[in-house]
Each structure stands twice: as C-alpha cells, then as structure tokens.
C-alpha cells in the first residue's frame, strides 16, 4: 500500500476523534438511561425505548435533514446560539458530534440495557443490606458485573460512528479537518476520479470493520443485540 497523503491522515484523525468523543459521551449519557430502561416498569419506558431506537430504522437523511434545520442558523438551537453571539452548529465538528451521538445512541443503550437486566437483583439487595450506597452499588457491583456489555457498547458504538455517512453528508458537508471524515473523503475521492485514494481509505475501513467485529464476537458471543434478536 502506498503511503497516505496529509489529507487522508486528516480524515482518519477526524474520524477517530469523532468516534472516540461520541463513544465517551454516549457511555455517560446512556448508562443511567439504560439502567432505568432495564429496571423501570413505568409506562414511559416503552416510548422512551422506541425514541432511542429510532435511528435504527430512520434513513440517515431524515436525521441529517432535521438536525440541519434545528442546528442551523435559523433553527431552534442554532438560532439561539447565534442570538447569544455564538456560532450555529451546522457544518461544524460540534454539529456532526451531536448528530453522531443521536445516530449511534441505540448501539450504546441496547448492550448496556441487556447487561444491566441480567444482573441478579438479589445481589443488589444483599449489598444494600450491607449498607452499600446507591453509587457504591453502581460502581462496585453493577459496572464490574456488566463488563462485557460495556465493552460491547464501546466497540459497537465506535465502529458504528466510523461507518456513519448520510447524517454527516447532510449536516456537515465536506469541510477538510472539520467534517470530512473518512466515509465522506472516500465519496469525494470517487467523485474526483481519484480511485487510488478511494481504494486506500476503503481498504483501511474494511480492515478496521472486520477487526472490530472480530473483537465484538470475541468479547461476548452472548450479547449480539441489536444486530440479532435473542
């Protein structure tokens, strides 16, 4: 393989940054959400679960289109930011980060939810009788017991974000160093008839995806949702 150009490295670094930040944000956001979903008998649980899973079935263009409207200069969020003297979020890294968080959310929530649901309530009760507080129980009991679920969530969320295209194309355009991630760069290179560059980046993504899935199956053959119903 010939060596990568600075533009290609830039796209790879940007993709890694986007996927890494998305994964961290989603773990923090989804841990309490998945816990609630796994334990709650509230009537809201199903609507919330459906809402979180929407990106699984919605075309990325729909997500991208709505986000462009909301985050753009005339949108509810973008317009407010502009009024505050800040910059709106369309066609920016922060914009596609928000898009990625929404787009990849089901891939974090689902493995976490299943891992949390599998924890025996009696263990938690026993810990509680030993005066372990809520946070103590969560960090010292729940998290260690759901290791494989968390690892699965991390691997799949990261990989799914790397594979994102439609949302970024709609919301981010193709700005080098800002929104031109690897998938977008490949698209641009094919349009430029630069098949050499397109091949290089595609081969990297193919290798990365295969290794990631290998890792995914190695971590836990049991937790395959949302790819496969149990």
């Amino acid at each position, binding site marked *: 393989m010939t060596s990568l150009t600075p533009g290609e490295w830039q796209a790879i670094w940007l993709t890694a940054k986007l996927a890494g930040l998305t994964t961290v944000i989603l773990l923090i956001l989804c841990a309490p959400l998945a816990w609630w979903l796994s334990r709650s008998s509230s009537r809201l649980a199903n609507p919330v679960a459906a809402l979180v899973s929407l990106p699984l079935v919605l075309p990325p263009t729909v997500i991208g289109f709505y986000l462009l409207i909301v985050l753009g*200069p*005339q949108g509810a969020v973008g317009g407010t930011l502009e009024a505050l003297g800040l910059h709106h979020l*369309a*066609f920016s890294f922060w914009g596609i980060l928000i898009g990625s968080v929404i787009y990849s959310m089901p891939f974090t929530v689902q493995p976490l939810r299943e891992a949390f649901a599998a924890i025996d309530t009696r263990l938690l009760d026993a810990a509680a009788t030993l005066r372990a507080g809520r946070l103590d129980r969560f960090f010292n009991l729940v998290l260690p017991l759901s290791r494989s679920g968390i690892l699965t969530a991390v691997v799949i969320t990261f990989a799914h974000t790397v594979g994102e295209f439609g949302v970024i194309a709609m919301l981010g*355009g193709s700005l080098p160093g800002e929104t031109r991630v690897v998938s977008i760069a490949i698209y*641009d290179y094919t*349009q*430029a*008839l630069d098949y050499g560059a397109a091949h290089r980046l595609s081969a990297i993504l193919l290798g990365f995806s295969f290794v990631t899935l290998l890792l995914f199956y190695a971590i836990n053959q049991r937790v395959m949702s949302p790819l496969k119903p149990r």
Partner: protein
Amino acid sequence: MNIGNHWLTAAAVALATLTTAAHADTARVAAAADLRYAFAELQPLFEKARAPHKLELVLGSSGKFMQQLENGAPFDIFFSADVAFPKKLVASGKAIAPVTTYAFGRIVLWSATVDATRLTLKELDKPEFRHIAIAAPDHAPYGARAKEALEHSGMWPKVQGKLVFGENISHTAQLIDKQAAEIGIVALSLAVNTALKSKGGYALIPADFHQPLEQAYAVTAYGQNNAAARAFAQFMSSKEARQVMTGYGFVLPGEVPQ
C-alpha cells in the same frame, strides 16, 4: 547601543511577522465540480503568487453549495457554475455584491468506450447507448444545460428512459468513466483533462442549444473579512489564471467564443 539596536531590529522583525500573519488567511472555497481540474492547477499558482495566502478547495454541485450556504456553511467564497445562485445568495444577505462572471462553460458529449468525437445528440437513441449520464438538472447547472440541449435537439422524450443522473458534473464523468453509462454529457473543462481525454473522446455541443453557462463567483458574508478570498477573487482576472482557465476550454469574459 548595539544591544539596543538589536532589540529594535528584533522588535521590528517580530512586528513585521505579526502583521504578515494577521494578513495571511486560508480561504475555504466552494467550487462548482466543473472547476475540479482547473482549480487544482490554479491553487499552487495562487499560493505561490499571493503567499502566504492559502486555499482550501471543496468541490460539489452549485445547487448543493447554494443550499449549504443558505444554511450557514462556512465558505469564504463561492464559485458557482450558474450566475443565478450567487445572485440569490446576495439577495438573501448570505453573500456580498458584486457577483462577478469569471467564465463561460461548454458542454460536450463524452464516452470512455466509443469514439464520441463525431457524434451528435441526434445519435443518442442508438441501441448501443443503453444509459446516458447527465448531471441532476434540478441542482447542477451543467445538468440543466444538458437537459436544455437535449430538448432543443428534440431528443429529450426519446432518451428519458435511458438517463442516469450524476449528483454533480464530476460525478457524472465518474459514471461514464466507470462505464455505468456508455455515454453522457459533461463539462468541456473535465473532458479536456488528460486522464479523460485519452479515453473515447468528446464532441462539443453547439453553445446555442442551451442557455449560456455563465459562471460567477461572490465572496460570502461569512468570508467578507477573509483576505485570501479577496486575493483569490483578484487573482482570477490575472493573466496567469486566465491562461489556465482558457486551457480548460472556458471562454473568459471579454473574449469572443469560437
């Protein structure tokens, strides 16, 4: 005294550096896809002539850039393939007058597999042309002009079932290059590129078959303080830039088309 002089010199140098740094900008250019090869050649010439200014080229269909700019995309200058788009952006306050015409484009019939040099639009209903690629007429100016030329020659109803649409004119060339379509209508500025010229060949479509491809640029509201954008706009009328553009088959403002 000597030491004092050194300090003065150092301060002067630092000041000069700072001043230059303040005026050195990178212009993010939204450029119509037909400009791909011409601008790839212009970029190093500009960056040499107007150092330390730099360009960051993003290519796509003019209609797509128009939509992105309406939604706040951070481009400093917009080189459209259709004068109507930057005019609309000026009207909506997203770009700054004046809208300057920089070139007139031409469309050609081009194929990567058959010799297209003697072909006319009239022959497009031949059975060997199973797919005909043009750019999307609704948002790509070269697609709109291709549609007009097909209508003018009375071929539009006959070829409609065979048309495939590229997202922009460069994508259209890709469809033909990869032989997803046996033939198609692309920009002359792409067909003269050495990599493409060696295949098949092209035939010019008479300019009076369609509305003129008047291509114009405007500095955007976002880029109004970007010195590199202004410098690149000026550079476009330099002899050097005009030579490059002529080399890619563009007819320049003030010149008589052949």
